[in-house]
């Protein structure tokens, strides 16, 4: 366990403090992940804006954690333009410790649908073969 995690386990006992910390973390991770995913795909802000049917200035604003006015619909459009899906869910507070420890570039990167091994052609063929085998029994 890191020194920071140890520190947060104490500091986040206070409700007001942990809600403030969480709010800033969410803003930071959304803004940073949009930039990281765009850079992972070698896209400029203009290219991502075109793919998401938005203005470049809007992408620029959303990569800035000052923005803080995210909407699920807009984030979903950006997600699809980046070849990933958006996941919004309610989680327990303990997750915040993991998120703080995994906010580096490597942990924020995601594969596009085309590169996702769950959907590669070989695996799809295997599933089809399995279904055929099961159906023939």
């Amino acid at each position, binding site marked *: 366990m*890191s*020194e*920071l995690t140890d*520190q947060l386990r*104490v*500091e986040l006992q*206070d409700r*007001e*403090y*942990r*809600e*403030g*910390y969480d*709010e*800033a*973390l969410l*803003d*930071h991770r959304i*803004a*940073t992940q949009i*930039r*990281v995913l765009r850079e992972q795909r070698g896209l400029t802000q203009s290219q991502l804006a075109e793919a998401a049917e938005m203005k470049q200035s809007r992408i620029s604003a959303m990569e*800035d*954690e*000052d923005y*803080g006015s995210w909407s699920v619909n807009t984030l979903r459009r950006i997600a699809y333009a980046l070849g990933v899906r958006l996941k919004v869910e309610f989680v327990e507070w303990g997750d915040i410790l993991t998120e*703080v420890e995994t*906010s*580096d*570039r490597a942990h*924020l990167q995601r594969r596009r649908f085309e590169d996702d091994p769950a959907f590669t052609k070989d695996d799809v063929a295997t599933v089809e073969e399995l279904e055929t085998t099961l159906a023939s029994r």
Partner: protein
Amino acid sequence: MIESDWKVELFDYRDEKGRNDVKRWMLEQEKRQRAQVNLKLDMLRKYGNDVGSNVLLRMSATIFKLKGKTKGVQLRPMLCKGPVDDDREFTILIGATEIDWKLVPADAVVRAERRRDEIIRDPKGRRQKHERVD
């Protein structure tokens, strides 16, 4: 302390009487806002000049302000890289707030530059390791 936790080391400006002016300023702020500043400083320390620097906005050749939402009163401490080791250190120079894009104090960037110069002249006397205020 596990130094390997951090990519960059954080320092606070110390005034001519040896007092931690950054800590004094943080103690005057609301708890929720202190938490938001601490998250940004944690990202900066932990992830350094790559994704960590997303929390900073350049204000002059040497001074950066900490980002945050633009509505209401926001805490905008001013930092510089180094100034002893620009690759592995940041120093918080002065506490400032921002209301509708206006900084308080209005000359926070100039004051921060002045304090940076003081640290360059006396790095041991005019700064200390960052003191976290939760």
